């Protein structure tokens, strides 16, 4: 079974995310032991951000890393586990509010594909980049 | 040369009223300013010609007029009249300056103002009792119109009240004059003659009493004062300046010239009573002013209080106190004119005179900062803060009177404290505080409105710092007035002995 990064690289629609992870120097961290839970925004999700947003971040890796870390939670959290929680502690340290009702929502994003298993964790694909605050 | 002071304005008034040419409001105003300015300049000339060493009257002008009546055209000048004439010339100019440029029926208005000015100058210069009375009485007519036509709310009531009160005062004064002349045994109304008449003391006291009531209404002293608040409040600012600054002085001038001057002995005898009357006026005016909500009314009551100081100075009848009293007339005229002018500006811009509606006018950009600053200055001048003219004149009155009537004087000192109370209320409410955002879109103050305020404030400040320029003119006149009293208990009383007696005197006042 591939790890988180490998899944992202091999799956279509995550090229922005992959580029961002590379720019932020997080490849190693995401390929490590884990386990980690990653909320992975699609390319469309990144495209929704106003122009320039991504570019500024890519130019400033530490800041980008911080945003990306907000999409990552320590531990292996499947949808069924998340359903019992109101929020999860992100690696950035701010909490991520989550709701699982009719839809599986992570902050203001909706999970479009849940519970993608990887060797070192689990991936939920989301349709929006989520931000702290 | 004195006649010029009378006839220049009157001629100006007639020309302004009846000259068959079209005059715009501005031109009418300029014409009036020119005429009153000319009188003012002429007054300055008089100052240069005035001989300080001469105690008695100078620059006499005499034309026999109606010998049958004992009425002559007889003018002359001494320190007292000089001060009053100067005040009149200055305040007329100020009042015309201060009147609105958009006034209704401007030609008529300015001509009446000039008419008043000329007449009052005549009254101050008159050396004939009947002439004085005639001019005194004739002022009523233009003033009646000035109040009833250009006044504020309730103007007819106020004008009528003013007319009736003053007419009544006139009746008393006339009775007093006639009595003096009659009992003096001549049929000549000349002041000189009257001076020499020998009337027994009790009769003197009766005559003086009649005159006191007459002039007391005009000044006014309590309890004859109730026409004053109504009239001052209803009158427009320029008219109020004339009324309070100049016309009220006809009363004090009359008392000094004809009461104190003609009956010095009776005057001395009535002294204690007058001192109490003065102190009562001071306190009554000040205390009542505190309760007022309308700035103009407050200033009106303040005026009653301040005229009390003049009376006190007169009552004490020492050289110092009389100089003080004469100077106080001038300083009161100046300060009152300044106050009324400023209040007028405030009312024009803000639209109200109510203390509970005004606020924050000291705000430098949206308020009336300069007007407010001068309001502080004039309020403080009136409250007797040193460095401004109000202090030194009040102080001279107090110092001059203390040795004669200590208790009454101390009460008057309390009065200045109360004066500070209401002026602080006035300044706090009007100038301090936060501007109301809903209403604070007032018009700019124009330079034309600033000029009179600047002129008066400069004089108030200059004379406050250099009071000798004010007091020196009336010194010898006061000395002459005092000297007329045969017995002592006067100027020389600044001695240890007398003052100790007077402490005791004061104790049972």
């Amino acid at each position, binding site marked *: 079974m591939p790890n988180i990064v490998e899944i992202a690289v091999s799956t279509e629609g995550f090229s922005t995310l992959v580029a961002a992870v590379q720019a932020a120097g997080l490849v190693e961290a995401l390929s490590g032991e884990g386990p980690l839970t990653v909320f992975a925004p699609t390319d469309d999700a990144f495209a929704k951000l106003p122009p320039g947003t991504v570019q500024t971040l890519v130019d400033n890796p530490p800041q980008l890393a911080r945003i990306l870390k907000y999409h990552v939670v320590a531990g292996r959290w499947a949808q069924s586990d998340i359903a019992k929680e109101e929020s999860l502690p992100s690696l950035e340290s701010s909490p991520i509010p989550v709701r699982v009702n009719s839809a599986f929502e992570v902050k203001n994003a909706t999970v479009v594909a849940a519970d993608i298993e990887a060797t070192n964790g689990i991936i939920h694909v989301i349709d929006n980049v989520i931000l702290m605050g | 040369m004195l006649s010029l002071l009378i006839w220049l304005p009157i001629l100006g008034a007639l020309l302004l009223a009846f000259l068959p040419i079209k005059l715009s409001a501005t031109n009418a105003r300029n014409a009036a300013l020119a005429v009153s300015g000319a009188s003012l300049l002429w007054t300055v000339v008089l100052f240069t010609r005035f001989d300080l060493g001469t105690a008695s009257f100078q620059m006499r002008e005499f034309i026999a007029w109606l010998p049958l009546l004992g009425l002559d055209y007889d003018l002359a000048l001494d320190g007292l009249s000089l001060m009053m004439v100067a005040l009149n010339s200055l305040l007329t100019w100020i009042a015309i300056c201060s009147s609105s440029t958009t006034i209704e029926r401007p030609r008529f208005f300015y001509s009446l103002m000039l008419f008043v000015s000329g007449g009052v100058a005549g009254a101050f210069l008159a050396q004939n009792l009947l002439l004085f009375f005639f001019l005194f009485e004739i002022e009523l007519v233009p003033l009646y119109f000035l109040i009833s036509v250009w006044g504020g709310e309730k103007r007819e009531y106020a004008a009528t009240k003013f007319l009736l009160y003053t007419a009544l005062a006139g009746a008393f004064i006339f009775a007093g004059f006639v009595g003096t002349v009659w009992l003096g045994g001549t049929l000549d109304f000349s002041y000189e003659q009257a001076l020499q008449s020998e009337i027994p003391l009790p009769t003197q006291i009766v005559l003086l009493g009649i005159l006191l009531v007459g002039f007391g209404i005009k000044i006014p002293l*309590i309890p004859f004062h109730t026409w004053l608040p109504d009239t001052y409040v209803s009158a427009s600012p320029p008219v109020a300046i004339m009324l309070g600054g100049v016309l009220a002085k006809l009363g004090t001038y009359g008392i000094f010239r004809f009461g104190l001057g003609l009956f010095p002995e009776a005057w001395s005898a009535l002294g204690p009573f007058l001192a109490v009357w003065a102190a009562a006026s001071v306190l009554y005016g000040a205390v009542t002013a505190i309760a007022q909500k309308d700035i103009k009314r407050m200033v009106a009551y303040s005026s009653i209080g301040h005229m009390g100081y003049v009376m006190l100075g007169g009552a004490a009848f020492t050289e110092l106190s009389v100089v003080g009293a004469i100077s106080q007339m001038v300083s009161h005229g100046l300060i009152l004119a300044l106050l009324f002018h400023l209040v007028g500006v405030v009312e024009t811009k803000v639209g109200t005179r109510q203390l509970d509606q005004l606020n924050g006018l000291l705000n430098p950009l949206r308020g009336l900062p300069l007007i407010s600053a001068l309001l502080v200055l004039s309020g403080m001048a009136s409250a007797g803060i040193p460095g401004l003219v109000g202090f030194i004149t009040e102080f001279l009155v107090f*110092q001059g009177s203390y040795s004669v009537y200590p208790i009454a004087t101390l009460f008057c000192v309390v009065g200045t404290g109360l004066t500070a109370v209401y002026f602080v209320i006035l300044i706090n409410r009007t100038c301090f*505080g936060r501007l109301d955002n809903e209403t604070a879109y007032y018009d700019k103050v124009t330079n034309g409105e600033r000029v009179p305020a600047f002129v008066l404030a400069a004089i108030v400040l200059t004379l406050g710092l250099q009071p000798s320029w004010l007091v020196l003119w009336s010194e010898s006149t006061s000395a002459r007035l005092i000297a007329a009293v045969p017995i002592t208990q006067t100027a020389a009383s600044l001695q240890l002995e007398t003052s100790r007696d007077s402490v005791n005197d004061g104790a049972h006042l």
Partner: protein
Amino acid sequence: MFNADFFAQTSWLIPCYPLFGALLSIFWSPAFIRRSGPRPAGYLNLLTTVIALVHSSIAFMAVWQQPTQFLSLSWLQVADLNLTLPLELSSLTLGASVVITVLNLLVQIYTVGYLEMDWGWGRIYSLLALFEAGLTALVLCDSLFFSYILLEILTLGTYLIVGFWFNQSLVVTGARDAFLTKRVGDLILLMGVLALYPLTGTWNFSELADWSQAVLSGTQSVSPLTLSLIGVALVAGPISKCAQFPLHLWLDEAMEGPLPTTILRNSVVVATGAWVLVKLQPVIALSPVASGLALTIGSISAVGGALIAAAQIDAKRVLSYLTSTYMGLIFIAVGTGQTQAALLLVLTHAIASTLLIMSTGSIMLNVVVQDLTQMGGLWSRRPITGLCFLVAIAGLIGLPPFGGFWPLMAMLEGLLQSGQWGLIGIVLLANGAASFALVRMFGLMFMGDRTAFTARAPETLWLVVLPTAVMAGIVLHVPLMVRNFSLYPVDSSLSWTLGWTLFLSSAVGIAASSAFYVLERIENPTKLIPAMANRLLAYDFYTPKVYQVTAIALVDKLSLLTDWLDRYVVDGLVNFVGLSSLLSGEALKYINTGKLQLYALTIASFVVVICLYLSWGYLAL
């Protein structure tokens, strides 16, 4: 020509410099110079203050250890009253003028920093300069009359400077109360001034002292009642100036004004009253009643002020009540004839309390609040200010060898010589309570845990910190000044027991306060004393309420009464007597509707009527 003596002879110029600066500052009112800011007004006044300081210093050196010289400038000569302005040039007066200009200079520099965000520089600096001018003129002038004039002008100055931030409602009432309270004192003083002249024929302090000698020796006889009344008036004037009970409340309210003005007010402006009192001491001493009044008022203020200060939660108000305390001690000194000790106390208090307020202001500037209960834990971040505060405490209370010890010691020695044990107790008590209050304030501000309000507290602007530090240096040098200028009045027969007692009273105060507020911050030390007593102190003996129901109510009700009388009785009566029917206005109403011609016609008819009336009057004779 420009030798030192020339500067002494032209000492009258000293007040003129700041006055000149004040006048020029007017141009920086918002109405005049609009396109650039108002700060030049401040720099200009700093310059004039420096000039005044240099002039005073040179003049001081010129008169040092020289006999006193007098100058006089004629002002007004009227009738038998001759008002000349006499100036006394002595090391005392010029020394005082040096102190005043130095304090002013530091305060004005401090103001540059403290009010750096303010747009009212033109006003504040012209007022500061007015005070400087007034104070230097006051110390130089040798006449009660001119002192009175200056005090009155400073009263107005107080009104304007407290009212500096006139947008705020409490400022407005504070300014009002300060003005009126001080004015009450001024007018009582004026009564004394008026009454004194007929007796003495002079207002010059030096001649008044001679006259007092004459009265004492019996060459002049004056009734004791007169002397008492005059003495009481002369004491009562300074009561309000010096914020003594019961006229002390204004100083509390005046704290609403900007802090830099508070510095001057609490240190030197209130001391003007004490200065005049010292100058008048020979006259006051003539009457046991007046001296007794000074002692009573002084004692109450000294002890009461310190106790109230110890219960305040507002930083500025602690200091304001302590000012009353020290002025009270000065009253005691004057009441017992110890003018030298009184002057020394004026000096040490002025210098130490300047530093006290400067350092407090420096804290308030970035802690934002004034509430002591919301402060704490500032020591580690603000050690410079903390040290300055400690120096100020040491310089104010009786703690040898610092400045404040010496005048108190001198007073105690004097009191001991005359055997006034009660007063000794009061001085010690006041000193102990003051020490307690000050250390309490230090503890609340600097010790304990940091609070939300003090969490962020860097040392403030250098323009604030630097003058404070310089002032601390001056405070530390006061003992040297006392020695070098031999200001200590009593022969140095220091009574060790007395010295120890004084030290002990401070130590007790410090120790008690440290126990509660420094070492261990007791959550609510007010529990230690009865709640009622605490409220009584915290709310200043309920003085505002007392004013409300007495003087204010009296004037208010009286004015309403006379107004009512005026409207309904006097006016009503007059109207009723015969004019009412006419005054209805109906009869003359038509006039107003008419035209110009009608008016003219009426005028003409009036003239005719009057002429007829005239001749009728004559003919009827």
